[in-house]
């Protein structure tokens, strides 16, 4: 059975200057589990991708909020939910294909691929005009 041991929520404006704040805040919260350097770096990278997606895609047209919930679960598991109320993704499967991007030039199209490969489980829900929710889970080593 999944038990919530600890939880932290924040909402922040989708400004690119908040990308580093979001990953630093989440990393600080998770530090109570004494993660390895690699685990922490994986989580920060996945968070950075999800938050960047909110800024570059979800709120491309209008500024809005990003809602983040981080849970520490039993057995050293972490779940992170990153939600926006932006434009939504018409075709989630297509958006998750590596190298696919609608942002052009300087975006590599690897956001979801990084989230998928750096976490243990990734779920994406999206509705056009209503927003996107990304949830990922990471199992930390027991030390």
């Amino acid at each position, binding site marked *: 059975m999944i038990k919530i041991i600890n939880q932290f929520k924040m909402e922040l404006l989708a400004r*690119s*200057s908040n*990308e*580093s704040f979001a*990953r630093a805040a989440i990393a600080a919260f998770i530090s109570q589990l004494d993660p390895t*350097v*690699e685990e922490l*770096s*994986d989580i*920060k*990278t996945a968070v*950075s*991708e999800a938050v*960047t997606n909110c*800024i*570059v895609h979800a709120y491309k047209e209008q500024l809005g909020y990003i809602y983040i919930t981080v849970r520490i679960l039993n057995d050293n598991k972490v779940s992170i939910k990153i939600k926006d109320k932006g434009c939504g993704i018409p075709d989630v499967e297509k958006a998750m294909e590596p190298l696919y991007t609608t942002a052009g*030039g*300087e*975006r*590599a199209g*690897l*956001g979801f*691929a*990084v989230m998928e*490969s*750096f976490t243990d489980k990734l779920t994406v829900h999206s509705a056009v005009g209503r927003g996107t929710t990304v949830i990922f889970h990471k199992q930390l080593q027991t030390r």
Partner: protein
Amino acid sequence: MQCSIFTSGNMVTAKLSGELDHHSAKSIREQIDCEVEAVQPDKLFLDFKDITFMDSSGIGLVMGRYRLMQLHGGEVIILNPSPSIRKVMRLAGLGRLAKIETSA
């Protein structure tokens, strides 16, 4: 995030430091492109030694500079990425576009 650029003959080296993400990539990109367009070097070295964090924005940065260097037949060489940065680069298959050199 900081970027120092050194030019020596046909080579441009951009020494990056700090956290490389979507927010910080823009000014780095502009600084590097300005120098590369002026010098048109044979080799562009991107030194990641002092980069403490990088997400896929760093991959976009390298891919964009690769395309720019291709315009005049130059190459991009990545120096000293940390293990976590190498992990992102491997996922992206960046080794196909740029030589990756790690000092011992």
